């Protein structure tokens, strides 16, 4: 089974990288860009067929290690 995990900085927390990229896009003429948020994309292959168990385990991985829930949100999708 494959898990795709997205980790993003919480909406109320400043994302200096996103702000810098927004500035670059503006200076290139992409004036329509309102806001840029940069996050992480992780692909995990899991040695299991049990979807319910995988969901529970990936959630635990996110809570414990993959995201710092003080400043980050996470979401994930399971495939296969």
């Amino acid at each position, binding site marked *: 089974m494959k898990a795709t995990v997205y980790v993003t*900085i919480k909406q109320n*927390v*400043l994302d*200096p*990288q996103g702000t*810098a990229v927004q500035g670059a896009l503006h200076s290139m003429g992409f004036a329509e860009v309102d806001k840029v948020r940069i996050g*992480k994309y992780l692909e995990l292959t899991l040695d299991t067929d049990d979807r319910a168990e995988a969901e529970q385990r990936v959630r635990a991985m996110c809570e414990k*290690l*993959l995201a*710092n829930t*003080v*400043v980050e949100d996470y979401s994930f999708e399971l495939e296969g």
Partner: protein
Amino acid sequence: MKFAVIVFPGSNCDIDCFKAVEETIGQSVDYVWHTATDLSGYDAILVPGGFSYGDYLRCGAIARFAPVMSEVVKAAEAGKFVLGICNGFQILTEAGLLPGALLRNRDLKFLCHQSPLEVVNAATPFTNQYTQGEVISIPIAHGEGNYYCDDETLERLKANNQIVFRYANDENPNGSLHDIAGICNERGNVVGMMPHPERAVDQLLGSEDGKRMFTSILNAWREQHGAAVNS
């Protein structure tokens, strides 16, 4: 008094911390590898700066699960002195020993220069040789020192006098919330700070204002163990 300097793969201020203890207060100090499982023989634990585990994923995220960290938590719970400097501060927040998190610097740059700090709380075991409100000069060297916590946590930090150092003279180098440079836990025996006192122990290094952090720790330990104890 016995000090441990924790060494993770990627630590790079461990030698500075070790030498600072030796040269400022001449106490016993050991390097302790991240795989160690017993810190019971130590009175103070220094978690040094660097790039533990390459800072992969997030600064301190992987180091926080090193075997030695459960011992650091135990030492903190036992009331021993735990000081996290720079990457050490990041590790202590990831481990939940200190509230909040350290984000990328506001201007995305790695900053490496002397920084004036206000001693906001001179009553901790780490700062008792300073005066409240005193401004000292300690170097910073970090890319991710932008302290963040939610409003509720900030109010709690203020109410409990847990803000130990703030960037002074209106010079907030990294965008840190409330100009915070260092904080302690509620009990006051765990401190985390982004600036490097171990790099400010001799005028040749540009400042010796960091010395008193080490003399403070020894002083606090002696007070705890009776003034007659000399080592």
